[in-house]
């Protein structure tokens, strides 16, 4: 239970921190896509006998970078490239799962998360990712803010804006890997988007949104974990419903006018 609690807090804090950028940049869908796209990595992890969270990291990072590369090369919008890569990778993962005779994993656990079964290695991976992403946010924050607000102006200012955009996709892929362990492939999007969207309704400035989203995310994850434990539910849906409930309350009492 202690491991699950640590895992829940890490998910609750890290997903909304990066998710705040995704929500305000209209990139929420990419989080969902990355969660589905890491399935081949997870399955490969089970096949070769390494922790699936470790195996998911390079897959997520590769897909995140491919999204931008495919968009640029094909001249397609990001969401089209995301749609193609997400469907392809998820299908590949399902085929690998179907063809493998050695994997003894419940597909429902992959889709909905099984935080109570998180291993010590899974926690170490999450902690490692947390350190990397916090360093990344510290390093790239000003450039990410610039590139998120005025992409053309940022690009003209320096090529660092492009580097920051790639770094953002990598950080998104990394927090998705943490999120999958708790909320599963299907519901990791809720941890990325819902607390950030709730904070967007409640506070004015972007940095305040990040901090509020992290606090709301942690509260939702921990509450959801306890609810799932005592009601014998999957943790992913419980966390999602708690986060969505808070969002509904914020929507009812919001102070921000529509942009």
């Amino acid at each position: 239970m202690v491991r699950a609690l640590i895992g829940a807090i890490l998910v609750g804090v890290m997903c909304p921190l990066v998710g705040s950028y995704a929500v305000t940049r209209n990139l929420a869908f990419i989080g969902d896509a990355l969660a589905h796209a890491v399935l081949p990595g997870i399955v490969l992890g089970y096949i070769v006998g390494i922790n699936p969270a470790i195996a998911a990291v390079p897959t997520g990072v590769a897909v995140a970078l491919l999204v931008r590369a495919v968009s640029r090369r094909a001249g397609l919008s990001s969401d089209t490239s995301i749609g193609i890569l997400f469907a392809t990778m998820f299908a590949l993962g399902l085929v690998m799962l179907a063809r493998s005779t050695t994997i003894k994993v419940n597909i429902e656990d992959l889709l909905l998360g099984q935080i109570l079964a998180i291993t010590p290695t899974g926690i170490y991976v999450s902690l490692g990712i947390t350190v990397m992403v916090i360093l990344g946010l510290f390093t790239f924050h000003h450039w990410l803010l610039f590139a998120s607000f005025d992409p053309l102006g940022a690009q003209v200012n320096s090529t660092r804006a492009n580097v920051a955009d790639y770094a953002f996709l990598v950080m998104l892929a990394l927090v998705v890997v943490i999120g999958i362990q708790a909320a599963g492939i299907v519901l990791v999007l809720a941890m990325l988007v819902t607390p950030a969207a709730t904070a967007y309704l409640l506070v004015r400035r972007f940095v305040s949104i990040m901090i509020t989203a992290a606090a709301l995310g942690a509260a939702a994850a921990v509450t959801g974990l306890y609810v799932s434990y005592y009601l014998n539910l999957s943790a992913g849906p419980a966390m999602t419903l708690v986060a969505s409930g808070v969002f509904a309350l914020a929507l009812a009492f919001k102070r921000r006018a529509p942009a």
Partner: protein
Amino acid sequence: MIAAPISHRASMSLQDVSVEIGGHLALSNVTFDVEAGTLMGVVGPNGAGKSTLFNAIAGLLPVRQGTVTLHRAGQESGGLAYVPQRESVNWRLPVTVMDVVMMGRCCRLGWFRRPGRRDREIVKACLGRVGLWDHRSALMTELSGGQKQRVFVGRALAQEASVLLLDEAFSGVDVAAQEALVEVLQTLRDEGRIVLLATHDLTNLTGRFDQVLCLNRHVCACGPPEQVFTPEVMEQMYGAHGVRLTTDGER
């Protein structure tokens, strides 16, 4: 504080520049020079290539042929600042006036340094120059069109840019706010900076701008505003409607 005016002196030269977008020639053989300390209006109809020209100068679009050359006074002189059309900006991101002007300091910060006292002083001075220090904590979405443009000019100042490109800066800006913006731009011009402003608005160019570039995929004319708007140039830009505009104006 902001560097001495002399450090912002720059001149720019475009020689035979052509730009292709999606297999179509968006700009053809564009040649003109801009001296240091020039406030230039770039006019032309929709699709004339005004934004394409700015994107080519800014390096956002590849140039198929020709050269864009920026001559700076010295190492300390700043680079190029780009103020895009309002549609290109993500207004959903809740940033304050101070945040946006601080973005101009990004290229001076490097990856790991946070904005320090000097950066904050520079931002304060820039906001003072564009008359928006009292609005520093306001969200960008809370400002009028003219104030938003002045914030972007403040950001260019914080960047210590020698060349400013403002795309459709008068769009959605009332005449009084246009006047306030032009006044700020004229002070930048007086420091030796080059300011290029693309606009649809052909009225009130005389007295506001030193030079006007008339564009319709090629350069129709380039010179002082009181000299360029001949019937021939207007026809090249706007067809028969353009000639009527000129003759109506003469009457």
